[in-house]
């Protein structure tokens, strides 16, 4: 049984409580309407033709036979949607349907709308495409082969999509100061989100009065989809409405604009009928945008007594066929190492390479689980080498609260030390580490994550989130926000924040969410930004509404505004609680004096980016912190690793809703265990080997251990009611903690995930043979990262300065 221990401040009524989620009743009765549940009159069904080739020129596309099939109403090929798009302004490299070339097996090439699914499938089969095969680029090694044909371009060459090289302070000097230097290589295999809901979209075209298209979609980013539709369809944004339906699991996998969304809209415009696309499970594997495979080299320097003197990180990312979020992912593999430890000097070199595979993108933790795995595994080795307890090595080097890091990240609240001490105590770490019988082990690691990316994806100075509140004269409160609930609990967060301020219950608040016609901007459910950003916007809007109500009640009762409180459905005099009125009466009074009863609030993160190229990735208004201990049972005969229990402590700032918070922590642990032990996108020569749920092995009920969760409350001064993120951070320490536990159990290092039984057995055989008991990458391919951009560390040195807010 999971346990959460938390304290409320005592001043709050619903924030920090365990109110049932406002969406839960509909979900438990099958009433929630997801995108694939929509049905419109005369609706056509869309299907995509996908490339059978990994890398080829398209010589000819003939849709004649398909168009002649009765029941087919529309067909699109690449030439019908020729405008390039991409989620990032610097990576506009995708077509809705392949033009001239295909870059991966499974890439959409043509689209059909027909009266039913079977007719659409038949039409797709009748489309004839002639390809001229090109040599496929299937791996990091291939991508560095100058003889292979360029994926993005003509002729042969190396497939460099993005390159970064940064040096903060004098790294050579830092290593010179060390008594011990360490260098290790790690590999993190790619994996995918596997949301239970396959992506789906429905589009509807209204030709009159001015020609408008509405797109319902299971998207995490209705705003960015809106922008992309405008660009690709060449329609002004005011003629497009995007409605994000409740998302049946995202984890980052529904954060890009997708072919099926653009094709649904274009086909609805072409045919004059609604069109639905619902991807099959296999197609979701090709849509992908999942975890990048990353090859890493970690170098650190330490003094004899375990003080970190320097760190250098080198990464190579296998990006798949397109840019997607890749330019950001690249920098995320180097950005957040410094927010957990006092790193005096730091160097980061990274390159993202294109390959002929489904495009990688953001998955829970976006680019940070891979380097976190590498760093925390190396620190475990360092501790053993220096004769220190791994927990003590961390405690010695932890960052202090209110610090500027060497790479210009502003750290404010930080409860990492308490997280570390909590899990060490609860797990019995001191009695277990190095002391359990062979086959049994414990592992430890920490992590940190952003409470929202400090910068929007496209450059602008507008709000990152806005919220409106309208109070009906009958007392009803409606909140309008474009934030989209992907299961992380954003709806509950919004109504809880507003209810708290207005003295109501979360279930009293109506919410209109994620509709570009009806709701003000929110950039989307990514980078763990919604609680911090939409929550703060809601807090501001609610406070302004409370002020309006209080002004009217104050005038009516003759009680000074500053003595009024809103609580329990009443507005009353704090000094004489009998003097007051119920909410409905207060609204009535306010509807006379404070017209209209409409307010708005907004949030924009403070400007935090450091003075260098690449500095836009990593800054956040706050960071969450997590520490975890994992206990495993590892069978030395079979190599099978079973996780017995996980202890995890998370610096939440303050919880808004305890059920949601615990759900995010346990869900993160689950997803991390899947990545640590089982999940991988396995390719054979560029063909995905396992595009089914059975073959893509994810944990079931039988593999999921019990989890003990602990909250550390640091009451962040900038978070809404002190809250920080919880959706992604708790994933980070669990993966390396598993690897470290395997070492404690059987004495071998598995320096790549997933830690499958064959790797454990192989390492144990090496050990028996007296060789290095390790399985992992043996070399980093040669690559010139160029001269680094040299960046002066901030004036306040890590761990020594205190930043102001």
């Amino acid at each position, binding site marked *: 049984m*999971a346990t959460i221990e938390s304290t409320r401040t005592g001043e709050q009524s619903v924030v920090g409580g365990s109110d049932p989620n406002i969406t*839960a009743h509909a979900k438990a009765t*099958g009433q929630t309407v997801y995108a694939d549940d929509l049905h419109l009159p005369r609706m056509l069904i869309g299907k995509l033709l996908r490339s059978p080739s990994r890398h080829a020129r398209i010589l000819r596309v003939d849709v004649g036979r398909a168009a002649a099939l009765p029941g087919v109403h529309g067909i699109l090929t690449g030439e019908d949607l020729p405008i390039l798009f991409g989620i990032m302004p610097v990576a506009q490299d995708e077509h809705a349907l392949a033009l001239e070339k295909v870059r991966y097996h499974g890439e959409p090439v043509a689209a059909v709308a027909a009266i039913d699914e079977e007719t659409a499938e038949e039409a797709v089969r009748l489309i004839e495409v002639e390809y001229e095969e090109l040599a496929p680029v299937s791996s990091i090694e291939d991508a560095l082969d100058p003889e292979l044909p360029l994926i993005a371009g003509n002729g042969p060459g190396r497939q460099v999509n993005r390159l970064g090289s940064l040096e903060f302070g004098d790294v050579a000097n830092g290593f010179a100061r060390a008594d011990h230097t360490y260098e290790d290589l790690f590999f993190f295999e790619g994996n995918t989100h*596997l949301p239970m809901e396959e992506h789906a979209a429905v589009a509807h075209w209204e030709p009159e009065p001015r020609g408008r298209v509405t797109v319902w979609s299971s998207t995490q980013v209705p705003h960015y989809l809106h922008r992309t539709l405008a660009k690709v369809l060449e329609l002004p944004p005011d003629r497009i409405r995007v409605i994000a339906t409740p998302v*049946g*699991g995202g984890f980052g996998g529904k954060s890009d604009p997708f072919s099926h969304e653009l094709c649904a809209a274009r086909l609805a415009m072409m045919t004059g009928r609604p069109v639905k696309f619902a991807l099959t499970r296999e197609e979701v594997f090709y849509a992908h945008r999942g975890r990048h495979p990353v090859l890493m080299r970690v170098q650190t320097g330490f003094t004899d007594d375990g003080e970190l003197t320097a760190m250098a990180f080198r990464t190579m990312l296998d990006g798949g066929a397109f840019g997607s979020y890749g330019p950001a992912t690249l920098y995320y593999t180097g950005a957040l190492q410094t927010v957990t430890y006092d790193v005096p000097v730091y160097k980061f070199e990274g390159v993202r390479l294109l390959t002929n595979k489904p495009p990688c993108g953001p998955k829970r933790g976006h680019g940070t689980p891979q380097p976190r795995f590498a760093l925390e595994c190396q620190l475990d080795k360092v501790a053993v080498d220096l004769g220190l307890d791994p927990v003590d090595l961390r405690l010695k080097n932890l960052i202090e609260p209110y610090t500027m890091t060497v790479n210009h990240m502003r750290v404010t609240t930080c409860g990492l030390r308490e997280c570390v001490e909590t899990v060490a105590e609860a797990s019995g770490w001191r009695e277990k580490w190095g002391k359990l019988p062979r086959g049994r082990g414990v592992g430890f690691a920490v992590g940190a994550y952003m409470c929202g990316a400090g910068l929007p994806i496209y450059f602008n100075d507008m709000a990152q989130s806005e919220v409106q509140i309208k109070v009906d004269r009958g007392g009803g409160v409606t909140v309008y926000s474009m934030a989209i609930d992907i299961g992380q609990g954003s709806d509950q967060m919004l109504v809880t924040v507003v209810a708290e301020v207005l003295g109501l219950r979360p279930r009293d608040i109506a919410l209109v969410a994620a509709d570009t016609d009806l709701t003000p901007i929110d950039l989307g459910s990514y980078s763990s930004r919604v609680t911090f950003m939409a929550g703060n916007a809601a807090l501001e809007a609610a406070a302004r509404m409370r002020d309006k109500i209080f002004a009217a009640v104050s005038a009516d009762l003759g009680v000074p505004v500053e003595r009024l409180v809103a609580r329990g459905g009443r507005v009353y005099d704090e000094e004489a609680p009998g003097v007051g009125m119920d909410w409905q009466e207060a609204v009535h009074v306010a509807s006379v004096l404070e017209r209209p009863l409409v307010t708005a609030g907004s949030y924009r993160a403070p400007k935090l980016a450091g003075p260098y190229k690449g500095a836009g990735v990593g800054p956040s208004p706050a960071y969450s912190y997590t520490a975890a201990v994992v206990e495993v049972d590892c069978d030395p005969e079979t190599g099978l690793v079973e996780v017995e229990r996980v202890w995890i402590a998370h610096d939440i700032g303050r919880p808004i809703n305890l059920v949601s918070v615990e759900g995010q922590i346990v*869900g993160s642990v689950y997803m991390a265990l899947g990545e640590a032990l089982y999940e991988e996108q396995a390719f054979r020569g560029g063909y995905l080997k396992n595009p089914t749920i059975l073959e893509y092995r994810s944990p079931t009920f039988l593999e999921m251990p019990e989890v003990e969760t602990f909250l550390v409350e640091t009451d962040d001064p900038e978070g809404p009611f002190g809250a920080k993120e919880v959706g992604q951070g708790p994933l980070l320490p669990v993966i390396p903690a598993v690897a470290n536990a395997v070492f404690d159990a059987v004495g071998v290092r598995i320096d790549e995930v997933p830690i499958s039984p064959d790797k454990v057995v192989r390492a144990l055989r090496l050990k028996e043979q007296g060789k290095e008991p390790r399985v992992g990458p043996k070399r980093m391919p040669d690559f010139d990262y160029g001269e680094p951009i040299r960046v002066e560390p901030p004036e306040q040195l890590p761990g020594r300065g205190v930043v102001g807010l």
Partner: protein
Amino acid sequence: MKQLVTLHVNGEDMELAVAPHHTLLEVLREEAGLTGTKHGCELGECGLCTVIVDGLPQFSCLTLAVEAQGRAIRTVEGIARGGALHPLQQAYVETGASQCGYCSPGMLMSALALLESNEAPTRDEVREALAGNLCRCTGYLAIIDAVELAAARMRSAA
């Protein structure tokens, strides 16, 4: 060529014209308007489409609608008693057993079938019974909590 079939769903007879090769999942969602049951892998691998047929949990994606004639079919829409949630649904709401909610309809049907055959399942028995239903959000523990809570309440109410 479609044929008329009568399906007995959630206590009601439904006369539907169905293609003989269409699955129970397709017919429930597209012909009967019962979209609570979710479409998943269509290979019997994920459990999203689980319904109860004659008391046993069954993948509706692997069942032809014509095979389901004359059998008692129950879906997520049929669990609540009138306007009141079934204790299992109520426990689901309280423990946070749904996050995105997409697995919930199928998961609830597997859990309901378990509770109807075992009024006091252990946590391991819950794990075993639900192992064919995947969830990517919750890490499963809240679902086990919900089944335990519902079982306890149902026993004390009996």
